[in-house]
Every structure is written in C-alpha cells, then in structure tokens.
C-alpha cells in the first residue's frame, strides 16, 4: 500500500461503515437481510482469503471449508438444532468453540500446505476442502450426512431473536467491521509486516531470523479465525448447515468474490460479495434459470478480463487517471510479485 492509499483508508472505511449502518432504515427488509446481510457474512469468509492472498501471497481454497468447520461445530453443540448431535451447549460457549475449531483447522491447513506455493498451494487447499466436504457428507453420526443440521437459529441478543432482520444485520456488520479493522491493524504490527515480507521475499525473511514456515502457519491460523466468524454467521443466516455450504460450488463462490472485488485490500472481499450476491439473486429473474450460471460466469469473466485486479484495480486506475501522480503505482500485489519472482540464488546478474 502506498502512503497515499493509507491516508484515505481510515476515513473511507468509516464513511462506508456509516452508510452500511444507516442503509437498512431506507431499504426493504429483504434487501437488508438477503442482499447486504448475506453479502457481509460471505464477505467475511472471502476476506479471510483476501487477507492471506494480499498480505501473504497465499491463495487458499480451503477457506469456505474452514468457515464450515466453525459452522458445524456450533451446529453440533447448540440446543434446538435438528437433529441434535451433542446439543445443550449454550451459544455463549458454542460460538467460541466454533472459532477455536476454525482457527485450529486454519493452522492445520497451513501446516499441511506449508511447503507449497502457487498452483500447488491451490490444489492442496482445494483437495483439503473437497476432502472434508465428502467426509462430512458421508458421516451421519456427527454431521447428519447429506442433509446436514437444521434449525440453528442463533443466540438471542438483548432479548431479541437472531432471526430478526436488524439483529442479524447489525451483528454481521459489527463482526465484519471488527475483523476488517483487525486485518488493517494486524498488517502494521511486526507479525503482519513479517507476513508481507514473506510474500515479497521468503529467503530474505529467513536470513533475517524469522522462522518462515511457522510464520506462515500462524497467518493461516488468523485467516482460519476470520473464516470461522464468517462461517458461524453463514450458518445462522441459513438457519443450519449442510455439506453444500462447504462444497466445491461454495468454495468457488468465495474465490469469485475475492477476485472480482479485487485483492490488494480487505475491502475488496466485501465489494466482491455484494456484486456476487446481487447477481446471484437477480440474474435468475433477468434470464432463463437454466442458463443462469452461464450468465454469472460470463459476467465475472468479463470483470476479470477487463480488470485482472478486480473492482479495486479498476478504482485505482480510475484514480490514477484522474489524478496522475509522478511516482506511479507502487502498491498492488502484482508489482511485488513480479519483482520477487526471480530464482532464489540469482547471484550472478548484478
């Protein structure tokens, strides 16, 4: 991020938060819950991917599965779920347990994939996601197999049911805002700076005294926590969880959100989630239902072709075109990747 971007990040983020906080007063409840609310809860999961990809250079396709780990953990524990697997554990305890489970799953995915990069990392995280999906689908005792666990209604908040549109929406918004702030804060700390250093040049990071693999696994743990928070909200939004929630389709949806929104800043995940949700909701009305997926695919392809770095990239280019700055763009993941792409021991060229 250039200092120029950083200067605008806080006021812009606060303005966006204010708009999102006030919007439900002006729009129908359907929009609040099923467009904005839904976009926010899936956006949180997408942000866990954006966090890893933007600051660590790791594209993980296991994030929806990790989100589902938290969702399933809560569904297994809470009272009222159908079928009741363990049941009886209050939400106040079940939710932290779910977050813990997702963090642990994040760490595990990080550990398993620690030696891989690029397409291999993509493949291994995808296999882990699909593997867990298949396992959950086949296991009746713990996950109720194909049908999943229904009637996970969420906790009461201030005496109001979670199903209340506003309770759901504002809880989701507050969670998203906190996690978003956490990410922006974290990347300024020694932990986050070292993560970005790892993205730019792992060899140098090791030579400076950092245990690069350990650092990387820790970053996956953080991303697991974020995905877990999203996963629990997704479960409340859907009033339950089934293998489809963490299947291949859902995994791809998260990737699509992150990419069309644009890597480079966590806000991209939410922009992408809103665009995705709008299309997912209304494209079927505009167009023959059978060909709905084709239309969605074509639109996303068009966005990515027009702007490989998503909507954020488009915005950046627009800004640069309107207010050209002499030093050019130094931010963005592509720049740093390209510059660090050389082979490790390229000691002969200088």
């Amino acid at each position: 991020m250039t200092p120029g971007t950083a200067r605008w990040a806080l006021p812009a983020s606060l303005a966006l938060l204010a708009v999102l906080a006030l919007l439900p007063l002006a729009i129908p409840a359907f929009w609040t819950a099923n467009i904005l609310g839904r976009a926010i809860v899936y956006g949180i999961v997408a942000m866990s991917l954006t966090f890893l990809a933007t600051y660590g250079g790791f594209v993980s396709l296991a994030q929806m599965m990790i989100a589902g780990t938290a969702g399933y953990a809560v569904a297994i524990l809470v009272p009222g779920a159908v079928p009741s697997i363990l049941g009886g554990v209050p939400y106040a305890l079940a939710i932290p347990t779910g977050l813990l489970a997702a963090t642990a799953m994040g760490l595990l995915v990080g550990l398993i994939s620690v030696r891989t990069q690029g397409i291999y990392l993509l493949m291994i995280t995808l296999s882990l996601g699909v593997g867990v999906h298949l396992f959950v689908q086949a296991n009746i005792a713990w996950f109720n197999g194909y049908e999943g666990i229904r009637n996970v209604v969420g906790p009461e908040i201030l005496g109001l049911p979670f199903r209340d549109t506003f309770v759901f929406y504002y809880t989701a918004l507050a969670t998203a805002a906190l996690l978003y702030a956490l990410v922006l804060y974290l990347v300024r700390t020694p932990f986050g700076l070292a993560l970005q250093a790892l993205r730019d040049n792992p060899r140098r990071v090791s030579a400076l005294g950092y245990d690069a693999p350990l650092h990387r696994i820790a970053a996956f743990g953080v991303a697991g926590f974020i995905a877990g928070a999203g996963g629990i909200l997704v479960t409340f939004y859907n009033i339950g969880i089934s293998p489809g929630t963490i299947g291949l389709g859902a995994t791809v949806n998260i990737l699509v959100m992150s990419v069309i929104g644009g890597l480079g800043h966590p806000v991209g995940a939410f922009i992408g989630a809103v665009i995705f949700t709008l299309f997912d909701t209304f494209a079927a009305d505009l167009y023959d239902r059978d060909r709905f997926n084709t239309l969605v695919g074509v639109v996303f392809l068009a966005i990515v072709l027009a702007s490989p770095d998503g909507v954020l990239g488009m915005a950046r280019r627009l800004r640069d075109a309107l207010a050209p700055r002499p030093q050019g763009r130094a931010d963005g993941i592509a720049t740093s990747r390209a510059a660090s792409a050389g082979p490790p021991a390229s000691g002969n060229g200088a």
Partner: protein
Amino acid sequence: MRPGGEETPALLLQGVGRRFGALAAVSDVSLAVARGERRAVLGPNGAGKTTLFNLICGDFPPTAGRVLLFGEDITALRPHHRARRGVGRTYQTSLLFNGLSVRDNLLVALRGARPGRFSWRLPPTADRAAAQLLAERVRIAALLDTPVAALSHGQRRQLEVGMALACEPRLLMLDEPAAGLSPVERPELVALLRSLPRDLTLIVIEHDMDIALPIADLVTVMKDGQVVVEGPPDRIESDPMVQAIYLGHGRSH
C-alpha cells in the same frame, strides 16, 4: 582467550564444498576469520564467492565440510537459526521487500533476530527510533516512507546494508556492496564500513580493489571454487596470480 591459547575464530570453514550437479561451485574451502577481523574476498565471476556466503548463511547446506560460528558447529542449522546466532548478510542483487516502505523494511529487519517476531502490538517507539537511526547511517532517512519499489539502484544498495546492520550481527557478510554505486556514494560506503564497531567481524566480497583493500586486514582470493591466495592487502595487490586473474578476466563490475 581459551585454554589452548588460541582464541576461537568468529568463522571457521573446514573443507567446505558445494556441488550443483556436476558443477563444483565451491570445493574444499578452509578458512578462519578472527573475531573483529575485516576480510575481503576477491575473485573473478563464477569463482564461488556468493555461493560461499550462501553456505555460511544457510541458504543451502554444504555437500562437504563443516561451518563453525564462534566455535559452534552450525553446518546443519537453518538460516533463521544462524541469523539468531549473529550471521547477517547483504545480497549481490538486492533482496528487499518491494511491497513495503523503507521504514517497514527496516522494521522487519530489526525484529528478525529478536524476540517479538509474532507481536500483535504496533512497533514500539524504540523500533521506530532504531529504524530512523539506521536510515540515517545509510543515508536514506529522507526516504523512510517511500515504497521500496520506487528506490533508485544506489538507494536499494544502501537499504540492503541498513537491513543487514539492523540485525546487529556478530558476523556481517556484504556481497559486492559497491556494485552500481555512483562515485559520490562509494566513499560514503567506505566511511560507513570504517565506522562499524570494531568487535564486528566483517567479510566483504568486492571487485573494486579501491574499496576492498583499504578496509581489509586480510584478503582471500578465490577462483574456480577454491581459495588460491590469502594474505595481507599489500601482498595481494602485487601477487602475480591476482594480477593475472583481474587482468585476464577484466574487472567486469
């Protein structure tokens, strides 16, 4: 002084070798660098100088021999463990964190060999002050907030040295620090090298004899992966073998 009368050298290489397939990039190098010594390493392109640094800092293990740091065998240690024991280095081709500012590069370098690498608190004032000081030492203090990707070649080289100093190494290895520096920047570099604390052990790979020889206590000349001459600077300068190497291959940097 140890019981044997000999002080343990800062760095001791015993028959160190490294093969890349059929190529012996470094073969059977034995050398001892005393504590606080300034050692220059010379040699033509492809002599194995950088590979030797890579073996010492642990980028890859040697295929033969042992590396001892202050008497401790570090041959099998991974790079970050060596860094924490005091090995610091720069790279011939700058390896910086291009997505970060100069300040953040220095902050990362400062934390590497110290506790708090996983800290979730903003860098303390002490770290920021140390980054400022380092930037002043390598004359890039005006650029602290500049993205590294926007630096000139000379500025990248300065930052490269600043980052190595940030770790407060006991053994500092500089790989052609003067390569690509302007005539103004060169004397500044020499002044900086002269200003380093006397207890720091320094190894410098440098093609430019005007930089290497004035600061060196001893000079090691390598060729084809082996040490061919070792001695004080005045003897090296007039050594026929060295003259042959440098005249024969040209001082290409």
